[in-house]
């Protein structure tokens, strides 16, 4: 009974807000409409409405998928200091990290659904009625870890919120093991996603043992960037108190992770370019263009400039404490890593093809509609989740004991 009331109160609270709130939701709603159109086109006509082809079989959908798995994994940057170091300022709002993870996993699922040619056959990989090529296919590992991660975060977040709501005591023996597992699990999701790419021996851009660690490092820069943005927006627009200390911790983590990412990128570039074998063609294409094809070059250098500048500025403690500046830096880093990982790493890995052909890929408008729509759906869900969570954390929605005893 209590649980149903929790669900009802949470839901009711999450959809009520001021003008700004509804304008934001409407804004997202616009992209969701485009998404509806794009998906209809793709489902009826086939993948031919995308810019993909036999040379570039993976494009923006996979790029966003990989990036978002990283964002989901980075929930651990909030959870880890909260529960392992017992860092109070973050612990109070750790649940927001888990909500980020939930929204990000939902988005990555949407992207994968857009990527596959026969989403209507998705049941083919359900164990039991279908065939699940586990442990051979890394994609099956990825499906397992992502689903479990979604469930873990869902339970952790809502168990915590429910206990707050009903003013019950958290059962440490139930809750803490889940937290520990979710910390380990967060790392696993991005590692497995990296393995899916870097075990393809025929794609030299990806066939690097540096990929998993670089994925995690860059995710721990992009994720906290997103969380900082969320923190700053939330504390401006809701009554939820998020301390400066919490934001400072996140910017610290973001800075370290960004530094490591830059170092790893640098190592990769030296390792590839010095010997200059055929295996460096993808990277050369990305950095300088090859055979007159230079589409990705501006993207690459934009991400380098963004990430290096942001890193240098972030090293100045005063800059990290200037929240107006930090807000823009975080937005830049989020974009910078998106370019680095999505556009840079994924798209360049497709060029040249295994038989040496250079083909440039331009996403179609339908593809862009679907991508924007997937993001809009994720942000929509995230907004409602955070809104409800803020209500619970501030005590605005709580269980009314009297009310319960009156219920039949």
């Amino acid at each position, binding site marked *: 009974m209590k649980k149903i009331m929790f669900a009802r109160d949470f839901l009711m609270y999450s959809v009520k807000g001021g003008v700004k709130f509804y304008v934001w939701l409407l804004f997202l709603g616009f992209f969701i409409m485009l998404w509806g159109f794009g998906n209809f086109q793709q*489902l*009826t*006509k*086939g*993948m*031919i409405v*995308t810019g*993909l*082809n*036999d*040379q570039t*079989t*993976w494009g923006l959908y996979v790029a966003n998928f990989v990036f978002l798995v990283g964002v989901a994994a980075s929930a651990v940057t909030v959870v880890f200091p909260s529960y392992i170091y017992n860092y109070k300022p973050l612990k109070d709002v750790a649940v927001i990290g888990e909500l980020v993870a939930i929204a990000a996993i939902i988005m990555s699922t949407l992207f994968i659904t857009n*990527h*596959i*040619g*026969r*989403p*209507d*056959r*998705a049941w*083919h*990989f359900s164990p039991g009625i*279908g*065939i*699940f*090529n586990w442990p*051979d*296919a*890394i*994609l*099956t590992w990825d*499906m397992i870890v992502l689903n479990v991660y979604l469930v873990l975060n869902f339970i952790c977040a809502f168990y915590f919120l429910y206990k707050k709501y009903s003013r019950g005591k958290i059962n440490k023996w139930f809750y803490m093991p889940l937290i520990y597992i979710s910390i380990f699990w967060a790392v696993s999701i991005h590692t497995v996603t990296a393995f*899916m790419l870097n075990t*393809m*021996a*025929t*794609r030299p851009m990806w066939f690097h043992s540096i990929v998993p660690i670089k994925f995690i490092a860059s995710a721990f820069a992009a994720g906290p960037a997103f969380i900082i943005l969320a923190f700053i927006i939330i504390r401006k627009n809701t009554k939820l108190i998020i301390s400066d200390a919490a934001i400072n911790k996140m910017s610290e983590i973001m800075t370290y992770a960004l530094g490591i990412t830059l170092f790893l990128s640098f190592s990769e570039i030296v390792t590839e370019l010095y010997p200059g074998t055929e295996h460096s063609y993808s990277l050369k294409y990305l950095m300088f263009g090859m055979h007159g094809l230079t589409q990705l070059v501006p993207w690459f250098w934009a991400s380098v400039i963004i990430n290096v500048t942001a890193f240098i500025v972030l090293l100045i403690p005063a800059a990290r404490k200037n929240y107006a500046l930090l807000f823009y830096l975080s937005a830049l880093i989020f974009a910078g890593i998106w370019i680095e990982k999505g556009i840079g790493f994924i798209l360049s890995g497709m060029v*040249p*093809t*295994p*038989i*040496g*052909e*250079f083909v440039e890929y331009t996403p179609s408008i339908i593809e862009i509609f679907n991508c924007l729509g997937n993001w809009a759906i994720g942000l929509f869900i995230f907004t409602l989740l955070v809104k409800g969570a803020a209500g619970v954390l501030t005590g605005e929605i709580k269980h009314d004991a009297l009310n319960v005893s009156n219920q039949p």
Partner: protein
Amino acid sequence: MDRREFMKSIGITGAAALLSNPDELEAKTTWAEHFQKAFRLMTDDEKDQAIKRLEERYSEEHGREVKVGKEPAMDGVLFGQALNIQKCIGCRRCVHSCVKENNQSRHDPQGNATEIEWIRVVKMEKGNFSAEDRDHGHPFKKGEEYGISEGGHAHNNVGVVLEGEHYYEPKKVPEKDSFYFPIQCHQCENPPCVKVCPVKATYREADGVVVIDYNWCIGCRMCMGACPYWARRFNWGEPNIPKDDLNTDTHYLGNRPRMKGVVEKCHFCLQRTRKGRYPACVEACPVGARKFGNLLDPESEVRKVLERKRVFRLKADLNTFPKFFYYMD
């Protein structure tokens, strides 16, 4: 798009079709096809039913009687092919006969389907060296006496180099200063494509041929990412096969018409080779550059080639162990 096509394209609405479509039999067929098992796991009965359904659908769609075979791998047979790059003249007869034999999608002027060719013939320049650049290289400074430390400029790519030039359109083949290098599925013994498939829609059969169950493939294209020989093609749209060009003698795992959203590739013409015939490409080659046969039979043509000629495998470093070999006399 008419209603029927729409139903097919969103197969999941089969249930809805069952309720609302007056043509109930057809709806049931879509429904059943949608929920059929992977071919490998079907009982003989289920296989026959699935084949009957397909034959009905194909015959109706294409307006011609289509036969779908299910011949299994023959005992004691492991198929292999060897290609003589010394002889190949780059005429692409193999390509065209393959397209026709295997019902590949043709160019669609309306842009709703892509053109698919499983065999691609890559042109290799014989290359030459430049006399003027003999002493040029990098870094190069006038008066610099240490010599060229990073690399000379007098070279050109020579030999088998994969640069993906498969669009050549000369008036006459063979062209001067070029040789040709056809690439198709190598039927790897260690197929990276099979390993990565999340639903085992693609797998190696007992006769060594890597096949795809087109009704089971989910179109994730992991296999296309993993294949080192760029052998796989995707049906980006609904395939376009002109009625008169349809080859009606098909095999379930071979050349039966595909649907949109699934992967396809060379399968050594199962529909022919499992009945003791040559693949279409082998028959079409005007210079006899392609030799096909049973790798387990010492008397087969392909084994004779392996014994007597200089043979190499493409990208041997990847340990895929192709059963498609290149050789020179």
